[in-house]
């Protein structure tokens, strides 16, 4: 390494390559170990869900056991049905509403911008910066006054408001990527605004719409604070159901793990699908 002569490239390769390669394998192995380490609690949760209770409570932990579906069956029999429907309803309807409101708004803040676009963008994002806990007391009172306590629509409205700024900013960043030449070409061809939106813009941003939807789904499905404060029995969602589980069946780890696995599964899958666009959503489109 300390030679000062100008070595020819081939000799450099011969001495450096083997070392680089073994180093490379070491780093790759480390990446794998860390990756599995972070994933391990989730993996353990899934595994425990397939155990009998007796196998879940052992010291040292049981690794080999006969898998059983008993716990999942038990959870499904314990009245998770309504809860699941509530979660699916709140998540789907709020996501659709977010897209319905957010896509046109993002369009009006990007391709055909209104006056004071910057102020409007600022307003949307600032609503995300306000801690939700500061609004929970009046929300509880207002929701009670209009008779929506323990009603799933209260969550639909709040989740829509919660995700709308993310969708507006994220969709805006996708709209801004539509090449302006394409739009100019379309309008030269005499296409009306609506036609160029439908034929040119929407097809181009459709992956963006899908990613936005998936991120909204993740946030609404996982939301707990509003759900635990504004719902009770009728409108309870999956995270609230899980809480009931620990107080009721706190000592049954296997069953608890099965319930936790079931509740996390949809969003984990959604996130895996959307992983390339996750950063963009979380950073309000600031990072591509």
């Amino acid at each position, binding site marked *: 390494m300390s030679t000062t002569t100008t070595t020819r490239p081939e000799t450099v390769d011969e001495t450096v390559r083997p070392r680089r390669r073994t180093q*490379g394998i070491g*780093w*790759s192995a480390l*990446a794998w170990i*860390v*990756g*599995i380490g*972070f*994933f391990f*609690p*989730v993996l353990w*949760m899934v595994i*425990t869900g397939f155990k009998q209770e007796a196998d879940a*409570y052992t*010291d040292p*932990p049981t690794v080999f056991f006969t898998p059983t579906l008993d716990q999942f069956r038990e959870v499904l029999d314990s009245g998770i049905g309504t809860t699941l429907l509530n979660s699916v309803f709140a998540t789907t309807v709020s996501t659709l509403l977010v897209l319905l*409101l957010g896509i*046109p*708004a993002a369009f*009006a803040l*990007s391709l*055909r*911008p*209104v006056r004071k676009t*910057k102020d*409007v963008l*600022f*307003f949307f994002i600032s*609503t*995300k910066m*306000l*801690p939700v*806990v*500061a*609004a*929970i*007391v*009046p*929300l509880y009172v*207002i929701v009670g006054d209009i008779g929506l306590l323990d009603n799933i629509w209260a969550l639909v409205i709040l989740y829509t*408001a919660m995700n*709308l700024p993310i969708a507006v900013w994220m969709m805006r960043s996708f709209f801004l990527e539509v090449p302006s030449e394409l739009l100019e070409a379309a309008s030269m061809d005499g296409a009306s605004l609506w036609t160029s939106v439908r034929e040119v813009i929407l097809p181009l941003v459709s992956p963006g719409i899908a990613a936005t939807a998936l991120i909204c789904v993740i946030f609404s499905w996982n939301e707990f604070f509003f759900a635990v404060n504004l719902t009770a029995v009728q409108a309870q969602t*999956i*995270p609230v159901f*899980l*809480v009931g589980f*620990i107080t009721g069946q706190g000592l049954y780890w296997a069953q*608890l*793990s099965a319930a*936790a696995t079931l*509740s996390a599964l949809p*969003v984990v899958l959604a996130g*895996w699908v959307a*992983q390339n666009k*996750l*950063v963009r959503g979380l*950073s*309000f489109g600031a*990072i*591509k």
Partner: protein
Amino acid sequence: MTTTTPTAPPPQESPTPLHEPRGVSRAEGWRRRGPLLPALVFAIVVTQIPFLFTLYYSTQSWNLVRPGSREFNGLDNYVDVFRDSQFREVAVNTVIMIGGTVIISVVLGLLLALLLDRQFRGRGIVRTLLITPFLVTPVAGALIWKTTMFDPVFGLINYVLSPFGVGEIDWVSRYPLAAVMTNLVWQWTPFMMLLILAGLQSMPKDIAEAARVDGAGPVKLFRELTLPHLRRFIELGTVLGAIYLVNTFDAVYMMTSGGPGVASSNLPYYIYQRAFLGFDVGQAAAMGVITVIATIAVSTLALRLIFKSFSGTEEAA
């Protein structure tokens, strides 16, 4: 920046105009505003009105278990809140929780991002594994940590540590704040990693290559090229993480219920307790207002950073 030439007239049409062009007719202006209004009105009604009520409630002496007790009491709630030593402890906890989690997550996220910013077999799988903690329903994640990980007798942590002579430590009750933060770090490190990884991958490769040819070692390369480039991403991760973490509630609720005492309470949990277990609407509202004021500094910074990353591309014209 230091050019003295007179500024050129602005181009007629910038590719992505931030402002509505002048000379747009009134009717056209409304046509442009049309698609925006439903979302704007909805956001104002749902997010702003409750905050106005919070301000109003914070000036009321109002306890739900004492009907008819409601009356205007000026700033008394605020005085009470600041006199409340528990509130001060909770405020400190909140700062520790957010600051600690963000710092540890950023450092771990940076290391993970560096590990992943290389070609190797199964890189996609490793990344998928790594982001999973961020996706798992936080309530479920907190449950898993509280039970199968941290349990003194049957938990995996103590099992793994037992060869090192660690006995049956009840982590959650002995170190409640640290236990909650462990769960939060586990959850938020993937977020930081994704952000920083995006930064690493946006780095122009030829510059690093040129520096390496010039004989710069890996450490020098990292300190003088990579870190400065990553600065924007790390800053953004820090402020966004802080803003998301201000709302932490699930982990505290599930793992410790803020206890023992208020040892692991943060502001959201304490306000929740005051409002829904103590029914003291006025004081809970006053604490909410204080939380908002305290976060304004962080949010201002966050907004500046986010707008800066846009202005780089949009206001170049």
